[in-house]
Each structure stands twice: as structure tokens, then as C-alpha cells.
């Protein structure tokens, strides 16, 4: 009889808000906190935030929350925690907007990727890495690597364009970090955490490792494509040179 009751309670407790819903709700509460700070009350034109249907809600929330105590508190948040929504939907976009060149944007993508990997590591160590978090992480890794590659391409183009105008020695020599190196740095950490975790966490880390392998091999795949195309190109070039 006791057994049945526990199952019933477990069942009922499956009814809950999704990560997304929780994050959305907490973002509004964060804005509310900023509007009603502990120090002094504030009359605010932002009151419309709290009506569910406002279209400008999120922009207003970002404005209010971005530099306050809540944003600060959010930096250490993990997926599944209320503050996480603030971390990735308020803090990160703001920082992203402050990078102006293609190089800076590419670097920021790398940093975001590292933030995700650190979150994976911390989650697994605490045994909290669940299915929803796994799905979010895989999606994020895809996105950050893809965006990084796009910005790197743009950076190359910008350099090419700059070469036409600026003499080579005057071009900026700054080497941007290498995303694949950074990914490699995390491999031993993930291995280590994997070895110490339970089966469920192991399985999840393996999924992440697989995803990272996939990313590490993306360049080879792209090069294979390019080689097929460029071998034609280079033979054409040679013919052209011979001709002149």
C-alpha cells in the first residue's frame, strides 16, 4: 500500500513547468526585482512587463535586468536553474552586442562554447545533467560552432579586403584563439568526470563527447568537399599560367 502512494506522488509531481517556461517566468521576476530593489522604491514605466501579452516585454526585461544585481548573480547559474535564463538570454546577448569586429565575434562564440562545456562539467559533477539540459547543450554546441565558423569566414574576407588597401606589415597581427584547441582542452576533463559518474551521467557525457568529435571532424568534411571542387580550379589556373 505504501508503495502505491509513493508512485502516485511521484506521478503527480511530474506535472511541472518546462525549463523554458521557468526561465521566461523568472526573467519577469528578475525585472520585477530590479524595479523594486531593496534599497529604494522606483516609479517605473516598465510596469507593462507584468502583463503576459505585451510584445515589448522581453526587450524591456533585458534593459532592466542587464546591469543589476540579478545579472551579477546569474553568471554562476546552471541549466535548470531560474537564473540560467538570465545568463543566456540577457547577459550573453548584451556582451555579444559589445563585440564589433568579426574577430571579436568569433572569439565570443568560442567563449560561449567554453561556458557551455563548463556548465556540462559542473552539472555532471553534481549529478544534475538531465535530458532537457542535454538537448539544450547539444543545440548550443552546434550553434556556437556554426556561428564561430561564419564569423571566421567573415574575418578572412575582411582581411582580404584590407590587404587590397593596407600594406601587409600594417595589418593587425593578432591571432585569435583556435576553437578546436579549446575543445581539445576539455576532453580530458570530460573523461575524468565521466569516470567518476553514475551510468546516467556517463551516458550523457558520452553524447556530448560524440557531439564534440562531430565538430572536430567538420573541417575534414568541409575540406573533402573543397578538394573535390578546388582540384578542378587549380588545374585551370596552371593552364592559364602556361598560356601567358
Amino acid at each position, binding site marked *: 500500500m505504501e508503495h502505491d502512494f509513493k508512485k502516485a506522488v511521484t506521478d503527480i509531481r511530474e506535472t511541472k*513547468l518546462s525549463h523554458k517556461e521557468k526561465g521566461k517566468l523568472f526573467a519577469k521576476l528578475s525585472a520585477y526585482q530590479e524595479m523594486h530593489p531593496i534599497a529604494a522604491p522606483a516609479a517605473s514605466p516598465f510596469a507593462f512587463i507584468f502583463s503576459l501579452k505585451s510584445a515589448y516585454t522581453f526587450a524591456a526585461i533585458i534593459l532592466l535586468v542587464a546591469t543589476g544585481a540579478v545579472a551579477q548573480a546569474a553568471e554562476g547559474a546552471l541549466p535548470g536553474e531560474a537564473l540560467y535564463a538570465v545568463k543566456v538570454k540577457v547577459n550573453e546577448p548584451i556582451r555579444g552586442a559589445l563585440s564589433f569586429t568579426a574577430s571579436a565575434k568569433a572569439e565570443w562564440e568560442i567563449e560561449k562554447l567554453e561556458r557551455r562545456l563548463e556548465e556540462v562539467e559542473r552539472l555532471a559533477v553534481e549529478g544534475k545533467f538531465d535530458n532537457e539540459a542535454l538537448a539544450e547543450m547539444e543545440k548550443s554546441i552546434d550553434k556556437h560552432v556554426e556561428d564561430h565558423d561564419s564569423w571566421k569566414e567573415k574575418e578572412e574576407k575582411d582581411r582580404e579586403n584590407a590587404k587590397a588597401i593596407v600594406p601587409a606589415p600594417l595589418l593587425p597581427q593578432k591571432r585569435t584563439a583556435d576553437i578546436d584547441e579549446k575543445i581539445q582542452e576539455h576532453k580530458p576533463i570530460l573523461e575524468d568526470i565521466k569516470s567518476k559518474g553514475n551510468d546516467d551521467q556517463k551516458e550523457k557525457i558520452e553524447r556530448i563527447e560524440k557531439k564534440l568529435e562531430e565538430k572536430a571532424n567538420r573541417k575534414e568534411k568541409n575540406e573533402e568537399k573543397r578538394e573535390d571542387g578546388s582540384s578542378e580550379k587549380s588545374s585551370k589556373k596552371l593552364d592559364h599560367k602556361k598560356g601567358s
Partner: protein
Amino acid sequence: MESPSQEFARTYDAFVDPLFRFCAWRVSDRETAVDLVQETFMRYWDMIVSGKKVEGKKALLFTIARRLVIDHYRKKKTLSLDDALEDTESKDLPDPSSFDLFETGAEGRRALEAIQKLKPSSRQAVYLRFVEDLSPREIAQVLDISSNAASVRIDRGLKELKDLLDPHSHGTRF
């Protein structure tokens, strides 16, 4: 040292789902339930800002939520204040068909349906004890009744519930 914002976030994480479930159970509508949970936490933050020392967060949050549910029904039906406080508990409980709102397995569904069959005055006490593990003292605070009254409702209610879920005394399952 935890900042008030961090503590608030931690409290949110700990209680947002239990509060959501409770509100959803009472109002049978997801959007309204989310609304009520939002309002609950806003009021809670107001109390923090006003410097009130908050003890017994769980009981406090459920107390706020319950009052907001009552207000919600009052606005809907324009009951008099007395009606709202007394009859709402029995008149406006959700009907079992709305439990589709609850993504719950068969056992859970059975239990919720059984709770519906209890005496109106026991339902909330049993729900809070059975589902969310509130202590009799906390339940007394939430329902605004004496500790004794709470214990009586809980004990009676749980016994009724067990009888409904398990009518054969030796626990034959069907």
C-alpha cells in the same frame, strides 16, 4: 554570503513547481496557474523588500498562492467576501476532466480523483500533505485554521483517501 537575489532565485527553484501544481489543481487552467505563480513570487519579493523577516518560506508561499486563488475566483464570480473565503474551497475545485492539465501517470490520476471525492474541507489539507509534504503546522498556517483542526482534517482525510485507493484491507491491486 548569498545575496538576496541569489536567495530569491534559490527559493524560486525550490518552490515554483509545487506552487504551479497547486494553482493548476485549483484553477484548472495552465495560463492562469502560471499567472498566479508569478504573482505569488512578486508578493514574496515585496515582503523581502519591506524588510519583513521571512520564516517558514514554504508555508508562506502556499499561503500567498491560496489567497490569490481565492481572489481569482472572487473576481470571476463576484462572490461576497464571506462566500469567497468559505465556499470557494468547496465550490470551485476543478472537475476531474481537467486533470489532463496534469501530465501524470495512472497512479497519480487515481489519487487526484480520489482526493476529489473527499469531504470539501479535507481536500486541500490532504493535497498539501500528500502531494507536497507540508507539515500539519504549515498546513494550519496556509489554511488559516488551528493546528488541531489541521491535524484532524489531515488524519481523517488521509484515512478516507487510503480507503478509496485501496478498498481491500490487504492491499489487493486491480
